[in-house]
C-alpha cells in the first residue's frame, strides 16, 4: 500500500501541490480514471492556510489536505459498481464512465474530498494520478511538484519509522494513508523590558504553569528580552515572569482558542 508523508515543518506554502493537481486534471480527460476537473472550485489536493499570532509574532500554518485512500472508504462500500481501489497504488477511483449522476457519493466521504461536477453530472476526486502511475511514473503530480521535500510518497513499509510518530489530520481515521509529521502546537510569546531604563531584560525567568498548577515549561528571556514557547496545548496557562530586582509578574495565556502574543511587558524596578 502506498502512503503519503507530509512534513509540515518543511511546507513553505507555495501551493505547488494544489496547482500541479489542477494542471494534471483541469482541461485534461483521463477517463475512465478521471474526467476533466472544472477550472475552479475543486481541490483534489487542497492547501489550507491559517494565520496565527499577532504583531510581532505572526506565522502562517500551511496544511495540505489529501484523500486518505482509506481502508474503510465509504465510497467503495456504497458504490462498488462504480468505485474501485487501484491495485498498483491503492488509490480509490471513481469510474467516470460508470458514476454519472451519483451525487450521493459527494456526501459519502466524511472528509468532503469528493466534489460534484455539475457540467458533467459526475462525482470527482483524487485518483492518486493512477493514469500516470500506469504509465510508469513513480509519484503523483503533487509530490513531484514539491520542491522542499515536505511531501514524500512510497510504500508504507519504507516510512515505518516516521509513521510511528506521525498523526492523521482533518478528521481522517486511522485507516487513512496520509501521515503528518511535525504538526505545530500553540505558541506563547512576549518581550520583557525595564520601563525606567528603556532596556530589554535579558535572562528573566519565565515559567508556564498549567491549570493543575504544574510547571510545564521554564525558559529565560533571550538577548532581545523575548520569550517563546512553541509546545503549548490548547489550554490555559499562567505565565510567571521573574527578573532579579523586579516583582514577579503573572500573566494568563489562554491558548484554547488561539496562540498568545503578549503586549510588551514593561516592568518597574522594586
Amino acid at each position: 500500500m502506498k502512503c503519503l508523508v507530509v512534513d509540515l515543518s518543511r511546507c513553505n506554502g507555495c501551493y505547488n501541490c494544489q496547482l500541479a493537481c489542477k494542471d494534471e486534471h483541469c482541461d485534461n480527460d483521463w477517463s475512465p480514471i478521471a474526467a476533466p476537473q472544472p477550472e475552479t472550485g475543486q481541490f483534489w489536493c487542497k492547501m489550507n492556510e491559517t494565520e496565527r499570532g499577532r504583531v510581532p509574532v505572526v506565522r502562517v500554518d500551511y496544511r495540505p489536505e489529501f484523500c486518505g485512500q482509506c481502508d474503510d472508504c465509504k465510497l467503495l462500500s456504497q458504490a462498488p459498481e462504480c468505485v474501485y481501489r487501484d491495485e498498483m497504488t491503492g488509490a480509490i477511483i471513481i469510474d467516470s464512465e460508470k458514476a454519472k449522476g451519483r451525487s450521493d457519493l459527494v456526501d459519502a466521504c466524511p472528509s468532503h474530498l469528493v466534489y460534484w461536477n455539475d457540467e458533467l453530472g459526475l462525482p470527482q476526486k483524487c485518483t492518486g494520478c493512477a493514469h500516470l502511475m500506469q504509465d510508469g511514473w513513480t509519484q503523483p503530480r503533487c509530490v513531484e511538484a514539491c520542491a522542499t521535500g515536505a511531501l514524500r510518497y512510497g510504500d508504507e513499509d519504507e516510512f515505518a519509522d516516521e509513521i510511528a510518530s506521525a498523526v492523521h489530520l482533518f478528521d481522517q481515521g486511522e485507516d487513512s494513508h496520509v501521515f503528518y509529521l511535525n504538526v505545530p502546537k500553540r505558541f506563547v510569546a512576549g518581550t520583557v523590558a525595564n520601563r525606567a531604563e528603556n532596556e530589554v531584560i535579558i535572562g528573566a525567568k519565565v515559567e508556564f504553569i498549567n491549570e493543575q498548577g504544574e510547571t510545564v515549561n521554564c525558559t529565560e528571556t533571550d538577548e532581545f528580552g523575548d520569550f517563546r514557547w512553541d509546545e503549548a496545548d490548547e489550554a490555559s496557562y499562567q505565565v510567571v515572569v521573574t527578573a532579579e530586582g523586579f516583582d514577579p509578574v503573572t500573566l494568563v495565556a489562554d491558548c484554547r482558542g488561539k496562540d498568545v502574543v503578549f503586549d510588551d511587558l514593561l516592568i518597574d524596578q522594586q
Partner: protein
Amino acid sequence: MRIKDDTAVHNLGLESFGGGANIVAADAKDGKLVRIHPVHFDQDYTKDELNYWKLTGKNGTVFEPGMKSLTPPFPMVYKRRTYSKNRIPFPMKRVDWDPEGERNPQNRGISKYERISWDEACRIIAGEIKRIHDEYGPYSILCQADGHGESKAINTPHGCMTRLLSEVGGFTIQARNPDSWEGWYWGAKHAWGMDPVGQNTHSTGTAQDIAQNSDAVLFWGCDLETTTWGWGGQLASRMAYWWHDCGIKHIAISPDANYTNVVHADKWFPVLPNTDAALQLAIAYVWINEKTYDEEYIKTHSDGFEWFVYYVMGNEDGVAKTPEWAEPICGIPAYKIKALARYWARHAVSIAHCNGGSYIRAAFAHEPARLEVYLLAMQGVGKPGRISIKFIEWVLFGMSSCSPLPTSKVIPNTAACYNGPLIGQGMESFVPKTKIHKALRGESFDWYGRGTSANPREDQFEHFEFPAPGNKPVKMLWSDNPAFMTSLNGGNEFQDALRSENLEFYLMEAPWFEDDARFADIVLPICTKFEVSDFGTDNDSGQWSAVTYEKAIIPPVGEAKSDWEAVQAIGAALEQYGGIYEGCVQRMTKGKTVEQQVRDGYDNCGIAEEERDWETFKKRGYQLIPTHEGWEDDVVGLTPFADDPDHNPLETPTGKIEFYSVPLANNFPDDGIRGPVAHWIEKGDGHDDRLSSDRAKQYPFLIVSNHPRWRVHAEFDDVEWLREIETCKVIGPDGYAYEPLWINPVDADKLGIHSGDVVKVFNERGAVLGGARVTERICEHAVYMDHGANADVIVPGVGGLDRGGAINLICPTATTSKNADGEVTSGYLVGVEKVDVFELAKRYPEQFNRNKFYDASYGQDVRDYLVEEE
C-alpha cells in the same frame, strides 16, 4: 492510456533580455499543452557527470542541489496563461484612431477596438513609420522594449523592433532602469562599488560561510518565498530551511509579515515603511556610543568614517540619532533597537536580500542602501559569517561571483541568437524609463546617467538631454511591454501622457490584452513560449546552469505571430517604400531560419566544442553544465578584502568602503538629498511622505508594495488557479475579484473596515479599489497592496479611479531623488476608506457594466473591448 504525444524542455523564467530560469518539461497531446512539470536530471545524468556539490554547515548539516528542477508555482500554471481568455486573438485597431483623419488621442483607454488583418495592420504601421521618418526623423520613434517578460532569445519579447529600426535609420529607446535595485544602484554603489547594481558581487562561497559561521541573518525586506518565483526557483527556500537546521537565527525586518517571515522567521522587527534609515542610524549610534564596532577594520578598510560619526552623534544638525530619536519614526521601541544593535555587535550577523519592497524602492532609497553598507563595514564585512547575501539572480549578468553557491564551469548565454538589444546597448538616443511621461508629452528635459542596470558608478555623473540637439520630440511609441502603468512610477500620469496630443501613434505587440495595451492604437497578437521554437538558458536555479532546445509543441493561439515574425511582417510592408527600406528584412534576419538561429545560439553559448553534442541536446531538450572543478577551494566572498584591502580593493575611488563619497560631493555639491554621506531625509525632491508630514492628516498610511505573491509584476493576473488561492483576490459584494489591501486590525477597527469590504486607496494622484484583508501580517499605520494587478480603468489619468487595484497608478512620478532616477513605488502615503461599490456603480454605470465577459475566476476578457462583440 496515452498521456502525452510529445515533450519539450523550456525555461519559463520571466526575466527576458535573453536570460532564463525555471526549466520545466512540458507535455503536449493532440496539439495542446497537457502538463508542465519539473525536469528530472537523474533520467539523463549521474551525479558524477554533474560534479554534484554538497555544502556543510554547523553540526555537519548538509545542503545539496537535488536531482530535479525546483519549479516554483508560476510554471505550474503556464497552461492557463497560454490559453488565457485574455489572449489577443487577432490584430486590432482602436476604432476612433484614423491615421488619415482624426486620431482622438484623448480617447486612448476609453474607446474600443475592431478586428483588422495582419496585412492591413502592417500596411498602416509601415505607413506611420515612413510618415514619422519623413516628418520628424527616426529618433521620434520611442521603443519601449524592456521590463520583465517571457525569457526567449530568438523571439525575444522585448526589442525585436530595434533590429528592424536600426536598419532603417535608428530609434530612441527607453533605458531599462535598475528596478528592484533602486537603492543599491543609486546609493550603495557610492559606498562600496559592486557594479553594476550595487548589491554584493563578491558572494562566492557565502552560503556555506553563513551556515558555518553566522549566528543570525537579518532578512531585511527580503521575501525569498515570493520574489524568487519569477526567475530563480525554490532552492532559495531549501537554503533558508538549511540555515534553520544549522541553528542560525532568522530575523525579519520589514513592515509586513511577508511570505518568508511567516514560514521561516524566528523574530520580526516590524519597521514602518521607508523608515529603515532611522533604524540603521540608531544602531550605528549605539555602536559608536558604546564603542562596539570594529574600530580596527574601520581604520584599515574605510574612508570618511569621521563624517558619519559627526552626523550620527548630532554634531551636524543638533540631533543625535539615538534609539529614542528613531523610535517614533520607525515604530520600533528604543529598547528593542538597542537590543538588536547589541546582539549584532556581539554576534556574527549577515544580511539577506531578495530585491524589491519598501526597503529599496521608496523615496531616497539610496540612503538605507548606503547605511546598510556602513553598518556591515562597522562589523567587519568579509570576516567569517559577516556578509550580505542574495537569494535571487545568482549569476546576475553572467557574473558567477554573484552566486553564494557553487556555480557551473560555464555560464552560458544566448547572445548569438538574441534578437533584442542587451541592457545598456543601442543607447544612441534614449530616455530614462522613469521619465517617459515627459517624452510622451513631447517635452524637452535633462538628467544624469544612462541609468540602465548595466552601467558603472561613474555613469551617474554624466549629463544628458532629450531630444538631443537637432532631434524632434517623440511622436510614436512602439511598445512590446504593456505593463508600465501597473509596474513603474506615476501610472496615472503615464495614462495622461499616453493620451496627449503629442503622441500620434501608439503601437503595441503583446500576447495578452492587459493594462497599457488598452490605450494603444494598433495591437498585434504575439505568441507565448510553447508556440515558438527557441534557444534558452537557466542560470539562476543555484543547481546547475542549463541550456535548452526549446521546440514549439503547440500551434500559435489565434492569429498570433512571434515578435520576431511580427517585426519581419512590418519590415516587409516597409520595403515598398524603397531606399533605405529596401531589403531591410534580409539585412535584419540575414536570411536565417529559427533552426539555424537555435544552432548559432548553442554553438556560441560558451560551452566548449568538445562538450557540445547537437543531436543529444536536441533529443534531450536541454544540457546541464557541471559544477566547476575546484569549487571547494573558491575564495569566500569578501574575505580577500577583509584580509588585505590594499591588495584587494573595491571598485570605489579609494578602493575602500566610503562613508563619504568624494565623487558625489564633487559632482553634486548642491544635492541636499543624496549628499556625500547617507542621512535621514525627512522630505524633498517631490516627496513628502512621512507619518509626521501634514499630508499624513489626509493620507495617514504608508503603503507597502512588494513584488506580488501571485503575479510577476502584471503577469498571471488572469490565472484561475492562482486567483482562487486565499491570499490572491478578495471577492467583493458585487462579485468582482478585488486586489487585496492588507490592513492591521487596530487600523481597520478605527475605520470600520472588515475583511471582504471594498475599500478605496487614494491620494492626490487618484484612487484604486481593493478588497480589505484585515490581518496581523501588516503593522499599524501601514497597509499593503502588491503592485501589478491588471488595471480596470474607471476614470483615466491623474485624479482617476481604477477598479482593478493597480496600485502603481497612484504612486509618485518623482524619482528616488533629483539626481537618482529610480522608481518610487512603495513607502508613500495613502488614505484608505470603505466604499459602497453599488453607489460607485451608479455613478459610473458605463464603466461598471462594460465587462459583459468579465469573470471573477479569471478577470478581464479581451472580448469586452471589441466593438463587434457588443
